[in-house]
């Protein structure tokens, strides 16, 4: 079923493992993002798939055939580089036809396929231009056309949008997804931008320190992070430290910030410490005590107007909580900085990361 498989892939630089026994199955036609901070091994992994780096252990297979021992020019992987890596001494046409000429495709077919590829990326009429005569976005399109025209097994995108300005980045990422779906090509998209990954991916592999922390759909990554790292890396999160007061097998009574509440489905030993997370948009603010929800008395320290929503910084005991509330839901003008308000949430808005529960 899996189209591209990484089986326990290892990469060492100077005796240090930068990719640690990484395994991953990618389905045909899927768009997978490698998301993680710099140094997490995402680009290293991509370079191993492309063949620019040798694997120091494990295997990479496409449709069950190992490819990790092939040199890069025999792998038939299409790559778009972060800086596009267009050949500066060749025109757009020459750049796009480079891979086809090497494949001994007939002249007329080269012409036709390059034409199609350039049409796909909206660059008809630019055949005779040189890369230096193109804008960043246009260079990006040429790089994409050049990679797709060879009909590669897998399309590899190495932070392709990081050199573009914010507006163009959003437009290009939509175009890339559209083209990817139209061609139906299996794609790996390396990025450190979580918003980008959430917006375009079928699945996201969140990477940290050479390992995949979690691989899942964007929704699950955001709503059910499986580790402390994922919950902190994806989106913003409030972190609460608590102690388990008692537990009865179905629910536990947990003491957090001076008061306690019951939390279902948490079952760890009495007296042990637990870390709880809650997204800023899950915290609500009330001017009165709410008995139906978990409720903390707090001081509204600051509010920041962010357009459609307002960010409230709440101080509870010694801890600060961030709450993001839509301005249509709550008019920020009715709350004064320094006043006492109640931060409330439902117990199912809280999540622990499974790793912490296990340990």
């Amino acid at each position, binding site marked *: 079923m899996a189209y591209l498989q990484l089986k326990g892939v290892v990469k060492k630089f100077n005796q240090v493992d930068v990719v640690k026994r990484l395994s991953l199955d990618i389905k045909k036609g899927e768009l997978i993002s490698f998301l993680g901070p710099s140094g997490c091994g995402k680009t290293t992994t991509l370079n191993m798939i492309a063949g620019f780096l040798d694997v120091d252990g494990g295997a990479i297979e496409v449709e069950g055939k190992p490819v990790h021992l092939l040199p890069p020019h025999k792998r038939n992987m299409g790559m778009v*580089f972060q800086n596009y890596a267009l050949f500066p001494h060749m025109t757009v046409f020459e750049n796009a036809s480079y891979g086809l000429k*090497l494949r001994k495709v007939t002249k007329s077919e080269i012409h036709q396929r390059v034409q199609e590829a350039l049409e796909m990326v909206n660059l008809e009429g630019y055949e005779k231009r040189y890369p*230096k005569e193109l804008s960043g976005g246009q260079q990006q399109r040429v790089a994409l056309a050049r990679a797709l025209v060879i009909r590669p097994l897998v399309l590899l995108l190495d932070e392709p949008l990081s050199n573009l300005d914010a507006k163009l980045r959003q437009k290009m990422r939509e175009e890339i997804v559209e083209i990817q779906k139209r061609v139906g090509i299996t794609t790996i998209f390396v990025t450190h931008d979580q918003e980008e990954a959430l917006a375009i991916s079928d699945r996201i592999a969140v990477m940290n320190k050479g390992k995949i922390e979690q691989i899942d759909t964007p929704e699950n990554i955001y709503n059910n992070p499986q580790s402390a790292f994922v919950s902190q890396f994806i989106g913003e999160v409030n972190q609460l430290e608590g102690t388990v007061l008692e537990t009865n097998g179905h629910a536990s009574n947990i003491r957090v910030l001076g008061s306690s509440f019951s939390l279902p489905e948490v079952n760890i030993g009495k007296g042990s410490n637990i870390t709880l997370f809650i997204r800023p948009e899950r915290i609500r603010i009330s001017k009165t005590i709410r008995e139906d929800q978990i409720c903390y008395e707090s001081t509204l320290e600051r509010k920041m107007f962010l357009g459609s929503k307002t960010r409230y910084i709440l101080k509870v005991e010694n801890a600060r909580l961030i709450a993001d509330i839509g301005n249509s839901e709550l008019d920020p003008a009715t709350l004064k900085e320094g006043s006492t308000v109640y931060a409330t949430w439902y117990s199912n808005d809280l999540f622990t990361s499974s790793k912490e529960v296990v340990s």
Partner: protein
Amino acid sequence: MSSKIMTQKNVPLTTSDTGKIRKKRRDILLLLLPTLVIFIFFFLIPLLFLFINSFKTFDPILGIGESWTLEHYKKFLSDTFYLNVLWRTIKIGLITTFISILISYPVAYYISHSSGRKRNYLTLLILSPLLISMVIRCYGWVILLSKNGLINDTLLRLGIVDKPLTILYTEFSVILGMIHVLFPYMVLSIVGSLERIDSSIINASRNLGANPFKTFFAITLPLSLPGIFAGSVMVFSLTASSFVTPAILGGPQVKVMSYLTYEQVAVILNWPLGAAIGFILVLISTITIVVYSKLLTASKKGVAIQ
């Protein structure tokens, strides 16, 4: 070609803006001034005098006569002896340049792919011929190449030859000596252009299906042409104008333009003819370099040579 990308938004300039720009330009010109002064006083003006004097008559007492004439140019261009010297000078220059490219490129490629201490030592090693005096280095070659020199001695003793080979005082020995001094210039300028090639461009070529061999000829070599050109200009013009090396390793048998000029100016004291020969050398060198750059630019568009 570049007009499309040069379009900028037309921001109206205020008078204080133009004043500032003018001041900035003046400041930049100021940086150029010391070099410009040296260039004008020690190169352009002497060259102008050379040019003017080459049209003066020869006076056996004063050297340079009073009246104007074209006879020196006529003499040079109608005498096969002089034309042979000119052709030999250009030939030695071209062969030296060509062989320098061939032996320098692999070295430059190796240096540009090494790093750290190794790279520093290699660069120092390459530069070492430049640290030794030109004369000393040439006499070193004389010891090796002469009739009773080390090479002939060894060949005779091993019985490979019956009588000593004539290696010294040939075009070969001049070219050998020239390459020895000048190839560092070629290596360094090729290293410079190889380093400017982004490694991801090489990876892109590999990724698209080109093996290392094809990648070299389709990507690396064309993109390093500017370095080859810069090195060629240096090596060719330094060879064509060199005096010491051809004088010691070539002697009177291998006369080149600079030797001819020296003879006219310092021995025969015919300054105007010396000036004409010197000026012809400058002119021919310049033309050769311009033609060469045109050929290179025509072969690969998109790479800026110059």
